[in-house]
């Protein structure tokens, strides 16, 4: 795992991090990148939000039938 990732590679890794356990090197590379790139940090938060939102989709309180 190289230490400097492009933003594009970061988005791919952030997504995979939601689907599998990332390796130590991958986690370090992400942290290094987030430290210098605000855009990717924002992207990471948006991905976590998306996961939350989809999980709640169809919960009783949002459904018209309830």
């Amino acid at each position: 795992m190289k230490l400097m990732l492009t933003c594009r590679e970061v988005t791919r890794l952030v997504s995979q991090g939601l689907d599998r356990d990332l390796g130590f090197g991958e986690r370090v590379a992400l942290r290094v990148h987030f430290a210098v790139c605000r855009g990717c940090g924002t992207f990471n938060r948006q991905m976590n939000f998306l996961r939350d939102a989809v999980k709640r989709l169809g919960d009783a309180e949002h459904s018209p039938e309830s």
Partner: protein
Amino acid sequence: MKVPDEFRLRVEQQRNYLLRYARLQLRDRDLAEDVVQDTLLAALGGEASFAGRSNLRTWLTGILKHKIIDAIRRARRDSAVSLDAQDDAADVQELFDGRGHWADRPRSWDHPEAALEQAQFFAVLETCLAQLPVNTARAFMMREHMGLETEDICKELGITPTNCWVMLYRARMALRLCLEGRWFGAQEPPRR
């Protein structure tokens, strides 16, 4: 065994909800009708196993999930799942410049936690999900809504883990853009 009318009525009242859920997940109207019908039949035959549980909808949704996975498994036997598209498809590519930097740097979304309280937001999310290619949507919903592990999704869809990650990645990239355009974009989200 005769099903008491009151229970039958309560189960029937959930039909629309279950249909919406199944359509979202399967993206096929007829298939959705079938699995919901199966679910209702199974439910009416299984009142005893519902007894004592507080939430009928949750119980029915649990049955429905199994029926949906069965349906996806059956559909896969009929025809191999086609990968909707590849990693370097144009829609992802155009987000980045030639050196892999953001063409348009992501900006923070305003009040995401408030969105989660609003029914309109979830309607927008459903619209965005409906725009995904069928198999991408199925894989994404199995992962994020049903909470299946990637390994199991690969197995059900008959694809490799790498293809699975690619599909999930593309789903997330597309949904992010869609939500940004339809909800977190220029105008202030409606408040109550």
